[in-house]
């Protein structure tokens, strides 16, 4: 009975993974660095007169995505997203034109987990992926949104925290028309892992070897338990 149940479960899992195989992205690694889990209480408007932006310092390498909190159904015109190293830079690292169709909750997205935190009654996170920035750790970045064709009152609304609400954000603030203002936008940044497994193993090894005294004591305890278990098994079988 139990065997057939496990067999059935195994078949279901196999069918499930065969079904989703074509949709799995090449790079399966994605983690959230900085961002606000809670939904913001205020919204500001990006329109023909107002450009809103934000600076932040990435805590990790391989930055590849930013998401911004927007209320549902709030846009009729195209919006431009720009990513720069500093607000004073003339050239942008990346820019993207977002049409109203791009503003939808991230359903069926491999990276949008936990899914519950992405969608809220007051809005959702719009994900904006860009080419990987490899050495992003400790660097300052600036992103902003422009909507030159949006009349006042009909622009893109985005979430903002007026009081300081930090979540692993060491430096950074919101910008209005490229001028620093108090508060910061409700946004998240995402990083990935791209190095080969040999580097991964070496880095894990380095971390373990940082405290060799503990490592020796810890591994000794584990070995003693393992030997005791094997000895117990052996004596039990013998008797």
């Amino acid at each position, binding site marked *: 009975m139990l065997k057939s149940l496990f067999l059935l479960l195994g078949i279901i899992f196999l069918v499930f993974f065969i079904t989703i195989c074509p949709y799995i992205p090449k790079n399966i690694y994605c983690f959230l660095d900085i961002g606000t889990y809670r939904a913001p209480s205020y919204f500001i408007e990006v329109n023909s007169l107002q450009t809103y932006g934000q600076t932040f310092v990435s*805590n990790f390498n391989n930055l590849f995505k930013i998401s911004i909190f927007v209320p549902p159904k709030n846009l009729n015109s195209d919006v431009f997203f720009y990513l720069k190293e500093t607000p004073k830079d003339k050239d942008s690292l990346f820019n993207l034109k977002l049409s109203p169709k791009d503003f939808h909750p991230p359903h069926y997205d*491999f990276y949008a987990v936990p899914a*519950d935190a992405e969608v809220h009654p007051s809005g959702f996170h719009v994900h904006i992926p860009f080419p990987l920035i490899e050495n992003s750790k400790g660097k300052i970045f600036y992103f902003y949104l422009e909507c030159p064709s949006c009349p006042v009152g009909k622009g893109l609304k985005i979430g903002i925290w007026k009081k300081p609400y*930090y979540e692993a954000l060491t430096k950074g603030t919101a910008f209005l028309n490229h001028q620093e203002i108090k508060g910061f936008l409700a946004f998240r940044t995402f990083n990935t892992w791209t190095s080969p497994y040999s580097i991964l193993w070496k880095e*894990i090894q380095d971390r373990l070897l*940082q*405290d060799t005294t*503990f490592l020796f004591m810890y591994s000794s305890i584990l070995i003693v338990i393992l030997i005791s*278990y094997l000895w117990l*098994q052996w004596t039990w079988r013998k008797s």
Partner: protein
Amino acid sequence: MSCQLQLLCDYSLSKFMQSSYLNWTLIGLFIRLLIMPFSFHGHDIFYLYYFPYQFLTTGQWNPYLPFSEVHLPQHTSIVYHYPPMMYFIFTSFLFFIKPFLPNLPDLFLTFQTWNFAQQGNTIHFADILMPHQLFRTLFFFKVPYLFFDFISAFFLVRFFKEDKKRLYAYKIWMLNPFTLHSCYALGQSDIIITCLLIVSAYSLSSAMPIKAFLLIPFSSLIKPFSIVILPFAILLQSKKFKDLVILSLPPLILVLTIMLPLYISSGNAMFKGTLSIASSISSYKTLFFVISYSSLLAIFFFFKRNQKDSLDFIIYAFTLPLLCLFTYYVVTLRYFLLITPFLIYLSLSCKRFLLYTTLISLTLFGLKIGGNDLQWGLFAALHPEWMSGLPIFDSFLNLILNVKILHQILYRFFLLVGTIIIIEILYVMKKKYHFSQSLSQPPYA
């Protein structure tokens, strides 16, 4: 004391059983030790030890007064957000483990800056605390949990009369996913409360009610949830109205003795800290919980209390309020640990409960492990970026399903199974303890 010794000595087991227990102890210990130095969640375990560290280094005995050491620009008054006994118990733990942690001052200095100035997730603490003997710190911080864990196993086994069931219970406890996740992976302290609740249930069944009436309020002074059991336990043990008053006195005296000095010293800050755990629950949930809890208490009140020493009845008295609390009010994986020993008892007593327990546990895991920082991300200490970047099962599910809707369905199923267990327990009680007869006779006539 002699009673406890007798407990330990009267354990006459066959050689086979002895080696089975030893085998499973080694397996359980090995799994726990494997997890201990490499896993933690957010700031949880560091927060638990940070304030006791201040007690040991600066001598601040009242955690509800602002800590002079952590006056940072954004937060001028940082106070403790747990009931007082958590502070004192962790201070005693730290007193013993501090000599093994020479880098603790540096670790807490870094932690203090990050936690109270800009916050941080598991990945950040794994990254910034690594130079301060992170593995060693996590290991020693969790060593006291082992003591409470094995004490819990010992008393859980004592609930059963048959050797076979005892061994089953022990095996389940050694592999209990709730213990492994809540206590050793997350680093939370719920195993201490669980242990105190098991011992109090055992004390009630061994006709030592005063001990139970001290342990239950004591556990609620660590985290307030276990207080919901107290009215049930008092009702269970009292035949007359006078008994109700007398049995309420030891918990009241204990709570007042511990809380009054802190209240005089720090005023309302103590209540804010103590009750902050349940502050984010919606009023709708609170109302539903209050109604269902009061109804259960009323039903319990009208039961015949001539079964006060019956272990089954005691287990029901512990299970009902906890299940009501963790099904209708606070739905989290880690608090559910408190109820697991009682669910193990019910599961081994009746096959139907085994099915319900399996269903409710699986649903809760499916429902509440929805983020990477509760799965692979817990092991971020080993490699922050890689461990936190690994996809979870929801990532794959999200490709073809709307996971949010799936979670909503799971939540409703969880509520349904929880309610079925409550109804089933009431039905069994009615069947076993002649509920309908006692309704016709007022209990305190």
